[in-house]
């Protein structure tokens, strides 16, 4: 059974139809890479899965529960699916530890002590146990992004959505973030990630989705997609003649 079932999803911004009927099923433990040109709708798709945008048609079912845009359903959905952003979006007024603790305490009403224990564990998992008391400003971009991952993990989601999480990083910092993601994948976390790191997508992902103009243009195992692009659009995108 699929963990995330996306069926014929359409999304318009005014007259601009950004998603033109997307269907993807993600099985538990799968790591799906979404690739495509700028403006093809990748971010919009992830945002719809997380309920940050409402969809106009189609359905999104996560772990058997249909997504509806009211507060109770949204909360339930977001407890299941975590999201990590390109711009990290750490809370600047809280320490790394505070960032990881906040939503546990506020949303799940976890007692402070337990939340702190979880936070320490999660920061350790991303290799930042020693930065518990550092403010975001005192961290490098790579470290900030790893804190953001720890923050999402602390909510114990069953899947993680990652939107170009290394694009805002200096080249030398990309590796440390990807290493963490790779480990998560190895541990069996379900991941849907928009990425420009083709190498990484090929090595780590179980499936690759190529989006083009609001549609799933090609989908398949990474070997197939990267070695045998069938459409001229994908070929052009990958830069192979």
């Amino acid at each position: 059974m699929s963990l995330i079932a996306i069926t014929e999803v359409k999304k318009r911004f005014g007259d601009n139809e950004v998603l033109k009927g997307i269907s993807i099923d993600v099985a538990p433990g799968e790591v799906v890479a979404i690739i495509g040109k700028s403006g093809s709708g990748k971010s919009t798709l992830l945002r719809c899965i997380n309920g940050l945008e409402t969809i106009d048609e189609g359905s999104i079912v996560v772990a058997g529960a249909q997504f509806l845009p009211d507060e109770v359903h949204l909360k339930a959905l977001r407890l299941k699916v975590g999201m990590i952003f390109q711009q990290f979006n750490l809370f600047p007024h809280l320490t790394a530890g505070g960032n990881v603790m906040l939503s546990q305490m506020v949303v799940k009403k976890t007692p402070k002590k337990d939340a702190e224990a979880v936070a320490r564990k999660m920061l350790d998992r991303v290799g930042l146990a020693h930065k518990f008391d550092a403010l975001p400003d005192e961290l490098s971009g790579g470290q900030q992004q790893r804190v953001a991952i720890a923050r999402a993990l602390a909510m114990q989601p069953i899947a993680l959505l990652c939107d170009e999480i290394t694009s805002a990083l200096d080249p030398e910092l990309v590796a440390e973030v990807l290493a963490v993601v790779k480990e998560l994948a190895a541990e069996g976390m379900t991941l849907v990630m928009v990425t420009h790191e083709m190498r990484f997508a090929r090595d780590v992902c179980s499936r690759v989705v190529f989006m083009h103009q609001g549609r799933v243009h090609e989908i398949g195992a990474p070997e197939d997609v990267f070695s045998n692009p069938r459409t001229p659009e994908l070929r052009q995108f990958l830069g192979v003649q």
Partner: protein
Amino acid sequence: MTYQFDFSWLIGSLPVLLKGIRITAQLILIGAVFGVALGIACAWVRALGPKWLKPVVATYVELIRNTPFLIQLFFIFFGLPSLGIRMSELTAANLAMIVNLGAYSCEIIRAGIQATPRGQFEAGASLAMTPFQAFWHVVLVPALQRIWPALSSQIVIVMLGSAVVSQIAAEDLTFAANFIQSRNFRAFETYIVSTLIYLALAILLRQLLAGLGGMLFPRKASR
């Protein structure tokens, strides 16, 4: 110049002056705490609140910002009783200051909220927070930090503006000055002294607010 300055009255008038300082301090303390709280509530309404409340808050803010504090004070103290709402002059002065600061701080805080990157709000949402939780825990503190200097200035301005509450017999520092000079006729000396006290109060208040800001908000790492 023939006028002879004479500050000998100062000793005898010290209790009156001290009481005036106490009342002024008390007014600004209560005014600042509740005024800023009201401002936060209004800023929330204008940013995220229920639709029907927005025009109410907008009207309130515009009315207050575009009429003199003195007139607002007269309305509360002399006007409201005709609707059966009666209060002591200190309560009226406090209320006027809260209402006044509330409107100004609403606008200031709203500007701080608007400058918050959208991503902050979305990060909160994606961690399953409700809009209000995201506002309260994620958006508000950095927004306040951003506008803290502007808010501090406004609080000082309201403190200085409170000089007119003596008009409704609230016994603040200006009242003390007027009271003393109505007895000793040493108007200039009295006003110079009270002006200096106001200056000291303003400087002190600014320092206090700066200190409070340092306590409330984490220091940015210097890069």
